[in-house]
């Protein structure tokens, strides 16, 4: 599903990633871990096409991100959900509208948008908050809205960058349970985290980064 070949990424003189080669199979649940500044966020951003690699290749579902145009990348993003640490919700739109946005950009019919957005919000337990605004919600609820938006299109891949970074242990467990449920439905899930507690509780594959290098796997 995701293949990385000799990936390098520099930001000016700073080397963010060095020679990363990785293969994530379809339906796999993988944690990308390592200390702060290890390159986890950069790796996920490269997989999502937000950044371009300095060298090397990224294949998502067989599509080489280096070789596709801007428009095709927009279309590919509809197949890849991304959950940001800072949620990236539109504060001027309701919870429902935030989730519906991911469907509206695809040009879906309003009736379909209503149905799917409602289902996604139900799956994260936020049906009663549909008409609330993000700033009226707790951090955990906001993260669940972000997850609902990321999964509403039934993505092939779900990328999550430190999705529990701002949450307490109870909310962290709640969010991880959501990811496992999504994974059970067949979605490939990649979660970047530096939380040791979270990693100790899981038996999933772990890819370990340090100073931009892939130093091992568990």
């Amino acid at each position, binding site marked *: 599903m995701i293949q990385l070949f000799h990936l390098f990424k520099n930001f000016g003189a700073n080397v963010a990633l060095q020679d990363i080669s990785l293969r994530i199979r379809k339906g796999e649940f993988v944690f990308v871990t390592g200390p702060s500044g290890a390159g986890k966020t950069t790796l996920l951003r490269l997989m999502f096409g937000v950044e371009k690699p300095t060298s090397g290749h990224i294949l998502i579902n067989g599509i080489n991100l280096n070789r596709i145009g801007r428009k095709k990348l927009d*279309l590919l993003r509809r197949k890849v959900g991304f959950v940001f640490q800072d949620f990236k919700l539109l504060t001027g739109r309701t919870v429902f509208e935030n989730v519906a946005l991911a469907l509206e950009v695809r040009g879906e019919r309003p009736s379909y948008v209503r149905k799917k957005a409602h289902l996604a919000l139900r799956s994260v337990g936020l049906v009663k908050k549909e008409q609330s605004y993000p700033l009226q919600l707790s951090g955990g609820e906001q993260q669940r809205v972000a997850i609902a938006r990321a999964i509403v299109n039934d993505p092939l891949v779900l990328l999550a960058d430190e999705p529990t970074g701002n949450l307490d242990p109870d909310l962290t467990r709640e969010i991880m349970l959501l990811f496992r449920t999504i994974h059970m439905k067949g979605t490939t899930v990649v979660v970047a985290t530096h939380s040791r507690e979270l990693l100790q509780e899981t038996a999933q594959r772990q890819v370990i980064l340090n100073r931009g290098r892939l130093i091992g796997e568990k």
Partner: protein
Amino acid sequence: MKLRLAPYFIRQAIQNVRKNWLVHIVGVSTMVISFLIFGAFLLLFYNVDSWIHGWGDSLSMSVYLEDGIDGTAKEKVLSLIRGIPGAHIERTITKKQAFLDLKRALGREANILDGLPRNPLPASIEVVFRPSEGNKPDPGKLRKKLETFAGVEEVQYSEEWLNRFEGLMRVFRLAGLIIGGLLGLGVLFIVTNTIKLTIYSRQEEIGIMKLVGATDWFVKTPFLIEGSIQGVVSGFLSILILYSGYIILSVKKADILGLALLDFVFIPNSYTLTIFLVSVALGLLGSFIALGRFFRI
């Protein structure tokens, strides 16, 4: 692009206008002022041009006769004029009549004529041409012919100074093009910056839309509609204010401009439609330029 997205785009554009209403009010006001300046110029130009053409259509000519012209020579001149299609002899003025007319025109100052040893004014024939279709007289040619006649001293016709006016109108037209062009550029600059401001105010939103897979056109379209709305509102208001101004001026024209004798009309529908369409087009083009710059970054 899917047609069913149209309501979504229009809704988004209206929401954008509402959110950035102050920026849009400033933008629309400036556009309206620009179009009003141009519209007022067009209104003036159109009327002056019609007056000049109106006068040109009713060309008049004065044939001045030598003193002591005999009846046969005068009759020859009169019959030549009568033979010209569309020519009408308005009146024949004797020397004495010309003197009395001048005296009447001078009013209280008429006594300055008392010291004259003799009447210096010539007798004349006033001719008015009412050209019909395919029958436009050539006053220059006619003057040459009349001046060869015995007893004719001088021939003057109104088109001589109309031609001078035509030259002035050409300058006027050129000035209009320059003013219109400059105002058009100004309007384009205003719309571009108005839309740029609304884009910047929604930069985060655009970023998030792109992250969930929105294409560039999906993001751009509401802004293009927003620019068009600005153009539609500006065009409509400009025409409305221009027309109201015209109505007020038409009522008071006798007092203000002393133009009561002239027919002051509003610009034709084709002109108002052009102003409106140009306004919409500039709104659209302005947004297009703003978006082009934004999406290049």
